[in-house]
């Protein structure tokens, strides 16, 4: 009898420890909604701990597609956004969900594909023309299909090329950049990627860059503080601090150097200068 009692009370003790161990959120927190590229490239892994150390504010990074990140902001579930979807961001400001959109940095998109390049796009200087060739040759193409910044860019490029992507070769992955790249590598398909994610993962991919440098491939990242006018729970003070941190001279130079050591080239180019806004 005694033994059973002991067993049951020790079980109860274990359960109590569990319940007692709930998280105490005494420190100030900030929710940053951002695109997967800033996380998967490793940039936020450098910047966020720095900010946390400097300010004591706990940053919660929710890395999703830019479409979802903007939706999190629109609902007030994020305090600050770091995204790369210019058109959608402008709409976000127009709708009053943020007071201003400030340029942080840019990199560029690259059109990657299989080494044998079935659509023969290598050497083509216009990416729009390259998209036309891919459509004409009916070569496989993996689209993010998730309303991310990259997906929005891709749709715009198809539109400019005047072709409706369709057919068996066109795959809507509904996935993040890393997954889409992996899928393209498996299927030996073309896909549009931001340069940073591609470089960060290229060792594991059987893909090469086939198109780069066309000015339309510029990929700007902006920071927006979610307006507390719409959502009184938004932590605007901490959000402002984070935005100013990103735009500070010190962090801008860190952004410019990030990746040189690992990839032999920078992954992002800093864009902030005083008074920079839309």
């Amino acid at each position, binding site marked *: 009898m005694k033994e059973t009692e002991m067993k049951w009370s020790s079980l109860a003790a274990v*359960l109590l420890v569990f319940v007692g161990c709930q998280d105490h*959120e005494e420190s100030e927190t900030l929710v940053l909604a951002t695109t997967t590229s800033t996380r998967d490239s*490793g940039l936020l892994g450098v910047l966020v701990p720095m900010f946390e150390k400097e300010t004591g504010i706990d940053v919660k990074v929710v*890395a999703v597609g830019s479409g979802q990140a903007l939706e999190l902001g629109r609902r007030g579930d994020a305090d600050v956004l770091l995204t790369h979807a210019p058109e959608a961001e402008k709409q976000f400001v127009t709708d009053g969900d943020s007071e201003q959109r400030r340029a942080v940095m840019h990199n560029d998109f690259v059109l990657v594909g299989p080494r044998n390049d079935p659509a023969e796009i290598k050497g083509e200087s216009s990416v729009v023309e390259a998209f036309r060739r891919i459509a004409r040759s009916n070569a496989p193409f993996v689209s993010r299909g998730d309303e991310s910044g990259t997906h929005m860019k891709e749709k715009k490029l198809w539109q400019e090329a005047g072709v409706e992507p369709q057919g068996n070769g066109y795959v809507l992955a509904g996935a993040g950049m890393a997954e889409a790249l992996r899928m393209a590598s498996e299927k030996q398909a073309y896909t549009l990627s931001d340069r940073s994610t591609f470089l960060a993962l290229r060792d594991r991919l059987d893909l090469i860059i086939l198109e780069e440098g066309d000015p339309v491939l510029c990929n700007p990242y902006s920071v927006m503080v979610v307006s507390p006018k719409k959502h009184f*729970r938004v932590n605007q003070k901490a959000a402002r601090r984070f935005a100013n941190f990103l735009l500070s001279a010190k962090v801008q130079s860190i952004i410019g150097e990030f990746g040189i050591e690992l990839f032999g080239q920078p992954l992002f180019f800093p864009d902030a200068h005083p008074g920079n806004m839309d």
Partner: protein
Amino acid sequence: MPPLDGDLWSILWLSLRVSGVAVLISSLIGIPCGVWLGLSQRRGRHLLSAVIQTGMALPPVVVGLVLYILLSRSGPLAFLGWLFTPKAMIVAQTVLALPFVIGITMSSVAAVPSELPLQIRTLGASAWQCRWAVLREARHGVLLAVAAAFGRSISEVGAVLIVGGNIQGHTRVLTTAIVLETGKGDFAFALALGAVLLLLALAVNLLIARLQRGRWPA
């Protein structure tokens, strides 16, 4: 960048904590409900059990989405401030585990020979003593219900990904870490995390098996 290093322990601990508390809450609610329903002779109990068993098919992502909408700062439960916290993940897994606890408890209690409660009652036991005796008799099934609830909780990814956000150091658990590493193409590490999850489940189930064998207080 090393993907996790020291974070592995915090991920493991959070997985265990979130799922453990979810199972605890769903057991505290679900076992009494299951016993009551299993002993019930009311009409309509077959329909009710069909409804509860349908709950076992609840898609985690749908539970996650509905909870997200409720807990969002624009949602009705915004005042709780639970979005992107382990609390939201516990709620999600509790909702997912509850139908398993109720359903399996109910059918194992219903499988206890109906003479038992009658005999006990004639011996002068109270209604509560009677329920406890039936529960003891059905303990294998009831603990199976707890094991199933734990299995559902610890292996689920869709709901915790949405309401937790897979935030490093805050809401990243084993399953969401596996999704992340698979996406990044680090299959070896993702598989290792999967093995850790299975080992964790084995440890918990060994504990449950001990309780199934052990003596229960009268």
